[in-house]
């Protein structure tokens, strides 16, 4: 690789814009410009120097800030498209056909198009993920491309800079001191700049005061945080890192926890509380009568002892007794249980009495557990009721056969066979809510409905997310980096005292020129320095505002 040798004798790597040692501009453009471009302190950047192999080209593509910004904007637009209509996971239908139908029925032909283009599931589409991935690569490559050389350059800063570097800074001052002994000026400057919390280095007749250099690392630190965060998100795809299961559990039930081997959970009670306020205007507008106050499931979490048979609910040890509420999940061994859903008043048991129609005489009571119906209910030696058919969610007949819509006992129907001393061969009866059919003619006995018992059902989500610590670390690093980069800035003041005692001063900051000028005002007054000028301001007034130019701020 070629070297650029500066007039001061320093050998710079190819692509250097400002001599690493003395700061003299090395390009024609730099020599002509009134204010130097101080981006990355004029260091050689890989992406700006090599462009031969394919690797170089890919590297250069991703290191470009222009590409980075374009990727940000594309991601932004893609993300916004996903909010036009609700995403599929917010639509409560299950099958593909139902989804397609839902979008078409609800949102018309636009909705259909939206669904067919896959925009209804945009965030898990391959192209959206590629976009995010490209942005991540861009962050990594651009940070390495600029961060490492910048670090080297900031570490090896020289105190004394070339005249052409000094004169081409945005803020410059030159002239004799306004009062006092010029031989003391540098000492005064050092004193004042130290009081202003600058670090001061001196080299002969030159001085460099510097403050907040670490602010230059802010952007790189926050990029590291972002990458760690995105890495954490990707880790979820690795099996075992992420568990996301949901379960329904009825009051009084004990069930194995999905995704959490050897654990069982018992629903002791589900509690729904409502606010008892008067209806507010907002409720009126939204058509809401009462507002929920609390969703709570009182649970017991059990662990199976070591020697138990897997899946068997015996030998259980109680590990937690907890009331799960929204915002207050039960947490155990990295797993969390969230209150997500509920169903009130599910039928639990139905009671019937075997009655003789004519006299109303009762032969006994049958209680049917709807989640666990028995084949027959024996009342005595000669009397029993056989359950020939059970349809938990009866939806009508099809070809004479009773049908059930779901396995949940929402609308139970039964076919009973009643065996009595009077009718030992049995009488068949179909019983549903408010409906009795006797297929073989008029029966002597009937199953008379007595009562129901109901219970609530609670929907819980079981989560384990081992990536959370990684995400948290990424988030903390990101926030630190953003804060460092935003709330601190890197200010430098170079001063040189010429042979005749006059002072030449130049100042640069990566942002917040207002504050460095305040520092300089205080310094000028204290050390009686010549007035500084802001060449950037003159520049803007002369050339008109808003013209396209390279940024003078630095990452």
């Amino acid at each position: 690789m070629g070297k650029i040798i500066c007039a001061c004798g320093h050998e710079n790597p190819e692509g250097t814009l400002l001599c690493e040692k003395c700061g003299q501009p090395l390009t024609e453009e730099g020599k002509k410009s009134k204010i130097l471009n101080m981006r990355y302190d004029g260091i050689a950047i890989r992406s700006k120097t090599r462009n031969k192999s394919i690797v170089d080209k890919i590297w250069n593509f991703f290191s470009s800030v222009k590409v980075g910004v374009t990727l940000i904007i594309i991601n932004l637009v893609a993300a916004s498209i996903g909010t036009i209509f609700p995403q599929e996971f917010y639509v409560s239908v299950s099958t593909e056909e139902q989804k397609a139908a839902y979008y078409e029925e609800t949102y018309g032909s636009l909705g259909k198009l939206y669904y067919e283009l896959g925009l209804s599931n945009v965030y898990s589409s391959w192209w959206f993920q590629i976009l995010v991935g490209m942005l991540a690569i861009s962050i990594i490559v651009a940070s390495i491309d600029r961060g490492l050389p910048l670090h080297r350059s900031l570490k090896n800063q020289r105190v004394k800079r070339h005249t052409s570097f000094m004169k081409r800074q945005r803020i410059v001052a030159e002239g004799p001191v306004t009062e006092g002994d010029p031989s003391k000026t540098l000492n005064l400057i050092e004193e004042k700049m130290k009081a202003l919390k600058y670090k001061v280095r001196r080299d002969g007749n030159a001085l460099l005061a510097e403050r907040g250099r670490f602010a230059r690392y802010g952007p790189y630190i926050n990029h590291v945080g972002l990458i760690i965060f995105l890495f954490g998100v990707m880790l979820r795809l690795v099996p075992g890192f992420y568990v996301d299961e949901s379960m329904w559990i009825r009051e009084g039930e004990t069930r194995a926890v999905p995704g959490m081997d050897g654990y069982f959970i018992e629903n002791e009670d589900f509690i729904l509380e409502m606010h008892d306020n008067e209806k507010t205007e907002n409720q009126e507008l939204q058509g809401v009568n009462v507002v929920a106050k609390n969703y709570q499931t009182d649970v017991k979490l059990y662990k199976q002892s070591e020697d138990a048979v897997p899946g068997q609910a015996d030998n259980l040890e109680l590990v937690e007794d907890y009331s799960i509420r929204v915002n207050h999940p039960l947490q155990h061994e990295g797993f969390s249980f969230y209150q997500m859903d509920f169903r009130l008043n599910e039928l639990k048991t139905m009671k019937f009495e075997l009655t003789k129609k004519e006299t109303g005489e009762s032969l006994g009571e049958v209680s049917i557990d709807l989640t666990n119906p028995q084949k027959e209910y024996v009342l005595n030696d000669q009397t029993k009721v056989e359950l020939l058919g059970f349809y938990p969610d009866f939806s009508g007949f099809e070809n004479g056969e009773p049908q059930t819509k779901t396995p949940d006992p929402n609308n139970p129907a039964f076919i009973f066979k009643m065996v009595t001393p009077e009718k030992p061969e049995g009488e068949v009866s179909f019983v549903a809510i408010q409906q009795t059919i006797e297929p073989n003619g008029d029966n002597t006995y009937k199953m008379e409905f007595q009562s129901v018992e109901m219970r609530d059902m609670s929907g819980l989500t079981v989560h384990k997310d081992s990536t959370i610590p990684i995400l948290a670390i990424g988030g903390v690093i990101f926030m630190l980096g953003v804060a460092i980069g935003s709330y601190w800035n890197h200010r430098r003041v170079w001063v040189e005292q010429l042979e005749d005692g006059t002072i030449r001063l130049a100042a640069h900051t990566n942002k917040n020129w207002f504050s460095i000028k305040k520092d300089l005002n205080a310094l000028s007054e204290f050390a009686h320095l010549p007035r500084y000028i802001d060449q950037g301001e003159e520049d803007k007034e002369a050339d008109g505002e808003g013209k396209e130019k390279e940024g003078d701020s630095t990452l």
Partner: protein
Amino acid sequence: MSLIDISGNLLFVAFIAYLVGTFFFGGAIKSSKPDGAAKRADKWGKLAIIITIIGFIAHLSYFITRWIYTGHAPVSNMFEFTTAFGMFIIAAFILIYYMYRLTALGLVALPIALLIIGYAAMFPNDVDPLVPSLQSYWLTIHVITAALGQSVLAISAVAGLLYLLKDTDPNAKTKGRFWLEAVLYFMVLVIGFILATVTFRVIGYEADFTYVDKEGMNQEITYNMPAVFGMNEYVLLTDDVLEPFVETAPVINAQKLTTVFWSFIFGTILYILIRLITRRSILSMLHPLVKKVNLNLLDEIGYRSVLIGFPIFSLGALVFAMIWAQEAWGRFWGWDPKEVWALITWLFYAAYLHLRLSKGWEGNKSAWLACIGFAIILFNLIVVNLVIAGLHSYA
């Protein structure tokens, strides 16, 4: 007088103070004529900021008394959040004012806060009970931090707007002039919304309808403005009121569309009146007011507000939001529209920073970007809450 009434009155005091403050800021800028009145300008400016601070204290007292009354941070419905947003904008303005001492900022910041509070006052100000998911201290932390971040970011739009008001020549036919006038027209439309709401409220207009929603259920709805658009399969229940002209599809909330329509009509009439009476564009009226401001300083203030606001916004609207979502729903990110638009806002300001750093988008371009950023913030507040359904929708 109960605490909630006191609270309401304090908000009113704040509103009046900001209104008076705006005129003083106007006076501060205007009176700095070369008749040796720099001192007088200084006086006006000092008075203006004192009035603003008094207003802010009243506003903060409203916030605190309401907090005590309701028992939770008053940021849980559209009225509460939007008034708080107005308060944080004033807070951010006061902060930036004491950093840069630029009175001209008040001339834009205060009217924007006034519009926002006025807008908020059009929503029901009842205290709503909290649903279980909102019953968390994260409501306080997340919402307040996010709103504070948005408010500081809003100041960059204030500086941007001021920059554009000075930088755009009202006599040259440019794209910039057209769009800036469009922004000002939009602000008049907000006044139009307030006027329309207040007018029909004073009249006591009410029209009841039944309609069929998109799930096929029968619902009832009350219009407080003459129904131009009717809901899906509407049936009018009130006598002697306007029958809707158009029936809309079930996904469209025709009641809200009607509100937008009337705001548009009132705002446009107001705008035309302003144009007819003054015979000038709003831009050319405001342009001379800001003649004296330093463009470089405005540019720097705009950039600095983004730098101050961006980390606060990231913390409140993304980090705290994720922590809360993890606690309430078991997932830190769920692609809810509000979350997505917070991400979009964040990406947009990230783009702003990168464009400024590497492409040198300063001055005029930066000012426009700041305005667009604020438009995204308003979109997230208004459209996402009211139009796009999701976990954060309020009405």
